């Protein structure tokens, strides 16, 4: 019995992805299971749902290293930046997976290469290209009030909706004061904090071509991120997406609200974009000149 690749992927994800030592699964071409090392190979059958299984030992996924399949919470950046964090994968209405991070992490015109690891962490052209900048919301100078610092990139490598050390995001939830939250970022890894404000209009320094940028309707948390953690997904303790981290200092961390990111995604990709829920999904590999076979998104 042979099933559709998507069904095989769902079964694979449910059966294996929560098991220790399993780093990823894929149905790009053939069925592949990625292992931390060979000691876990005994768990993998020779065939799954009528498909032969390839085992690939890729080691333990670490944040600053090349990570394939690509997951959230790891080092990424366009060739114009030092380093940031991949938030997570969003799926467009037409089924295409997209990489989500901050605009200042995915900086550059549409078509700019995005690397994992990021340039500062040793990522190089062309071997470490994981995608190309696609749709984005430009951060504008005052008096404009920005709501999000976000951009999308089209992936060119297998991706998973997994966030390292966290698991799969599980929908979106509104932030509230005293909510306990966590994030996985390129610099400080998995950290925890508490929301201290959900209505903040903030002044953020460091954006290209302006003294500072203004953002409204932001979440402020206790300090839980440092430089290079930009783009980290802010999550509830139940893995619900709360926000997208983009600014901060040694005392506080600031995030765009998930609902505002969702609204921005709608602007870029009408109709609705929904983060994956539950099951990890690995995208088919898209290579070479075919990467822009779909519509290039740009505000």
């Amino acid at each position: 019995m042979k099933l559709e690749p998507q069904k095989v992927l769902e079964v694979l994800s449910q059966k294996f992805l929560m098991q220790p030592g399993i780093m990823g699964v894929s149905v790009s071409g053939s069925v592949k299971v990625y292992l931390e090392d060979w000691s876990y190979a005994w768990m993998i059958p020779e065939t799954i749902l009528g498909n032969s299984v390839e085992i690939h030992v890729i080691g333990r996924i670490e944040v600053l290293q090349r990570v394939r399949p690509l997951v959230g919470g790891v080092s990424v950046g366009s060739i114009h930046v030092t380093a940031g964090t991949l938030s997570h994968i969003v799926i467009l209405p037409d089924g295409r997976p997209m990489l989500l991070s901050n605009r200042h992490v995915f900086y550059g015109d549409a078509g700019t290469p995005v690397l994992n690891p990021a340039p500062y962490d040793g990522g190089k052209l062309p071997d470490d290209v994981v995608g190309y900048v696609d749709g984005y919301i430009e951060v504008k100078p005052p008096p404009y009030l920005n709501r999000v610092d976000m951009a999308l990139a089209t992936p060119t490598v297998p991706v998973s909706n997994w966030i390292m050390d966290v698991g799969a995001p599980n929908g979106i939830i509104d932030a509230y004061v005293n909510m306990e939250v966590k994030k996985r970022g390129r610099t400080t890894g998995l950290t925890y904090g508490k929301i201290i404000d959900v209505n903040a209009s903030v002044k953020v320094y460091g954006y290209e071509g302006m003294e500072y940028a203004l953002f409204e309707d932001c979440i402020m948390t206790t300090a839980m991120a440092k430089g290079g953690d930009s783009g980290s997904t802010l999550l509830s303790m139940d893995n619900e997406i709360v926000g997208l981290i983009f600014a901060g200092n040694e005392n506080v961390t600031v995030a765009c609200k998930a609902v505002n990111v969702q609204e921005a995604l709608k602007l870029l990709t009408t109709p609705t974009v929904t983060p994956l829920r539950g099951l990890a999904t690995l995208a088919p590999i898209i290579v070479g000149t075919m990467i822009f076979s779909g519509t290039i998104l740009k505000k």
Partner: protein
Amino acid sequence: MDIKTATEEARKRYLPLEGIVAVSHDGARIIFYVETEADVGKVPRMFMGYPCTAVVIGRLTRL
């Protein structure tokens, strides 16, 4: 005037000032986040009928 509108007015007036980092409210008070202790004096005690609080958090930068 409700506190949301008052906070919006406070943002327009105070956020452009050097040392004022963020403006918000908690439903009862308008909260001004400032860079240093020296900036606390820039925060009004009352604004449009609402009490104000200053919180020192430092300058925010993109990460």
